[in-house]
């Protein structure tokens, strides 16, 4: 990473003044160079400043450097778009325009992201009249022209028990030329509600960023707040948090394999995984009373402990459940009827995945060997020496295999961790956050890298709280995966990415 960045470890708060405020040209030059050199953009956000200006900050990271690089610029007008050169920034640029009116000049597909009102009133980049009347999914949509081309529109309300989103397919016969996904229907103003905190509501709110990633987001939040306060959770709390994070991953990956099996019509694995997923959710409930781990992780540690007997019983339960998952997964991956449906379907080639900045299992299935548990580890992952699971094929099968392999690691990790919980307290007192600080907190949730960025004001309150759910990086992956596919493969491809609408929409 170039020298002109401020570096910080994930979860380490730095003084606001230490982050360099560069000229727009320098800021963008550094950003483009580091991304081209293989770094990834963790987050990019704006904060209102006087005279209509906007302080834009980017956080970047690489695989071989356990720090995060921070750089800012003060935008007084449009910034030239980098999206053509570095597609990974395309949605961040649109978001910056939507939230604070910083227009990315020359952006190849300049649209709102969530159809949300701006964080500060000002001229609308799209010339719409404010206030917006609650309209998401408004045209234009990218259209393909030609006599035999037709368009298929699906959503926001879908056929299953699933969150809302709008899908526009450009098709030639059965085959998909292009898919555009328009989201924002689940927008509920998470970042606005978090600003001004911490309050009694804060933890419950971060647990509701994506309901299937309550532990991941609560942990990213807790570590950020601990960094701002200058404390660290005790070892027993760190271990229990990791147990919960891996249980969340297990439940989601096992449930995801079951979902794929259901979409293929492979009933044995579909129903077995549905029931086995519950084993891991119920393990979370044994720990904290809630099947999604809500209420467990708080700044300073965790709220619940396990006795030696309870921990041993839980470990045995995980071992038993995992043995059953292995059995049903083996049957799944061996069946010819399954292989026919998942091999070579929904491919994202590694080079494209890298340019798009895919993260998590979706990225690792396309050869990106990045996992924040390995690249930016915190206790107890620093001692766990995880090697990221990687596949090269980038298809539905690769994404499914990644999930099986990661779940296997998690099951072994959880059982071992429960049998060797370090002694001591499960929480420490957390003083109020220090003022004028900036912290970036990274946690590898089951979908990939979760990033929480908090800047405190002079009073120690959250002046800006930026959340990046891994889905924000990955929805583009699903769109390109559909190119050249049969439209009937959409449900399977969608399930193989298994992205969050709520996490994207905030």
């Amino acid at each position, binding site marked *: 990473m170039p020298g002109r960045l401020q570096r910080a470890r994930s979860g380490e708060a730095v003084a606001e003044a230490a982050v360099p405020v560069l000229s727009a040209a320098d800021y963008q030059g550094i950003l483009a160079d580091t991304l081209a050199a293989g770094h990834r953009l963790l987050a990019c956000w704006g904060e209102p400043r006087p005279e209509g200006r906007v302080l834009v900050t980017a956080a970047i990271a690489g695989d071989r450097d356990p720090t995060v690089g921070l750089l800012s610029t003060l935008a007084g007008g449009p910034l030239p778009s980098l999206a053509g050169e570095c597609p990974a920034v395309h949605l961040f640029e649109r978001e910056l325009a939507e939230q604070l009116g910083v227009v990315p000049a020359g952006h190849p597909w300049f649209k709102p992201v969530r159809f949300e009102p701006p964080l500060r009133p000002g001229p609308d980049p799209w010339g719409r009249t404010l206030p917006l009347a609650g309209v998401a999914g408004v045209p234009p949509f990218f259209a393909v022209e030609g006599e035999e081309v037709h368009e298929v529109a699906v959503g926001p309300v879908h056929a299953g*028990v699933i969150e*809302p989103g709008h899908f526009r397919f450009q098709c030639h016969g059965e085959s998909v030329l292009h898919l555009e996904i328009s989201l924002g229907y*689940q927008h509920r103003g998470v970042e606005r509600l978090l600003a001004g905190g911490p309050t009694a509501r804060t933890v419950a709110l971060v647990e509701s960023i994506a309901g*299937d990633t309550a532990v991941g987001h609560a942990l990213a939040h807790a570590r950020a707040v601990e960094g701002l306060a200058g404390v660290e959770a005790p070892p027993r709390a760190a271990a229990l948090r990791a147990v919960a994070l891996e249980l969340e991953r297990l439940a989601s990956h096992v449930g995801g394999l079951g979902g794929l099996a259901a979409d293929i019509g492979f009933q044995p694995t579909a129903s077995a995984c*549905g*029931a086995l997923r519950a084993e891991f959710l119920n393990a979370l409930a044994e720990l904290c009373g809630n099947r999604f781990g809500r209420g467990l992780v708080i700044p300073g540690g965790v709220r619940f402990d396990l006795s030696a007997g309870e921990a041993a019983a839980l470990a045995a339960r995980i071992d038993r459940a995992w043995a*059953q998952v292995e*059995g*049903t997964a*083996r049957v799944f991956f061996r069946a010819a009827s399954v292989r026919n449906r998942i091999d070579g379907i929904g491919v994202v080639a590694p080079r494209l995945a890298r340019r798009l900045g895919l993260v998590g299992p979706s990225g690792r299935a396309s050869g990106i060997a990045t996992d924040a548990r390995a690249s930016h580890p915190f206790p107890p992952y620093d001692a766990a020496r995880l090697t990221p699971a990687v596949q090269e094929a980038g298809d539905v099968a690769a994404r499914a295999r990644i999930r099986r392999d990661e779940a296997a690691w998690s099951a072994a990790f959880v059982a071992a961790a429960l049998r060797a919980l370090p002694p001591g307290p499960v929480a420490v007192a957390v003083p109020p956050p220090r003022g004028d600080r900036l912290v970036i907190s990274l946690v590898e949730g089951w979908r990939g890298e979760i990033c929480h960025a908090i800047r405190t004001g002079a009073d120690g309150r959250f002046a800006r709280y930026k959340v990046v759910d891994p889905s924000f990086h990955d929805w583009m992956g699903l769109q390109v995966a559909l190119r050249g596919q049969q439209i009937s493969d959409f449900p399977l491809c969608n399930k193989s990415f298994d992205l969050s609408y709520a996490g994207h929409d905030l």
Partner: protein
Amino acid sequence: MIGILRARLRLGHQTIAFPGGAARLPARFRGRPALAPDRCAAGCAACADVCPTGAVLGTGAGGLAIDAGACVFCGRCQEACPARAIVFTRDHRLAMRAREELVVRGDAPTLARALDGRMRRLFGRSLKLRQVSAGGCGGCEAELNAAGNVQFDLGRFGIQFVASPRHADGLVVTGPVGANMRDALRRTWEATPAPRLLVAVGACAISGGVFAGSPVCGDGLDGAIDGVPVDLYVPGCPPHPVTLIDGLLRLLGRLEGDRPESLAGAP
């Protein structure tokens, strides 16, 4: 094929005994709060201070009350109370027919009333529901899906989620009703043939939950579709599948009173 059958046999029978037998809820499960206001120390509001959603409506001997429709069942209030005036029981029966009935004041359970005779005749043996997420985090959807899996098997009661509102007898709505979903929700309701039911699932759909007061959301389903009242409220964040099944069965008059077999296993 033999491998498939062997794997299937090893799994055995998975469906829970509930409602005929115990629901087997985890020891730390937080269900209906039981309140003992006479234990409150004068002037203490420790519970209300820690509550993330303002669900503690009143404190003290005369007024201690928890709105189960706003509560996310985090248990913070119980933790904060020095007098054990708030204790979360493992009673999973939380669903109610009217918004005010969700307010818990003492320690006696209230149970959801059944539909009237005509609606019961229409829906009692077969109820098809269409789900709409209107904001929210996707957590309730996960539990609604779980309610249909082999473990909880909602289908064995003749209750099913269907793909189209045109095929549905009612809507199950989750989320606080964000501004961006208000129109789609109304249109889905209009596409559902009458007579039809409206069910609010989860703290968000009942009261806004953790998103209450958001500038881009409503505070739940009440009043979100002009002039349409809610028929059943299912509290929780998210509600446990057993809470949902219990609520729907009571609504249909298929589970009544306080029979012990309709209770969770003893704590």
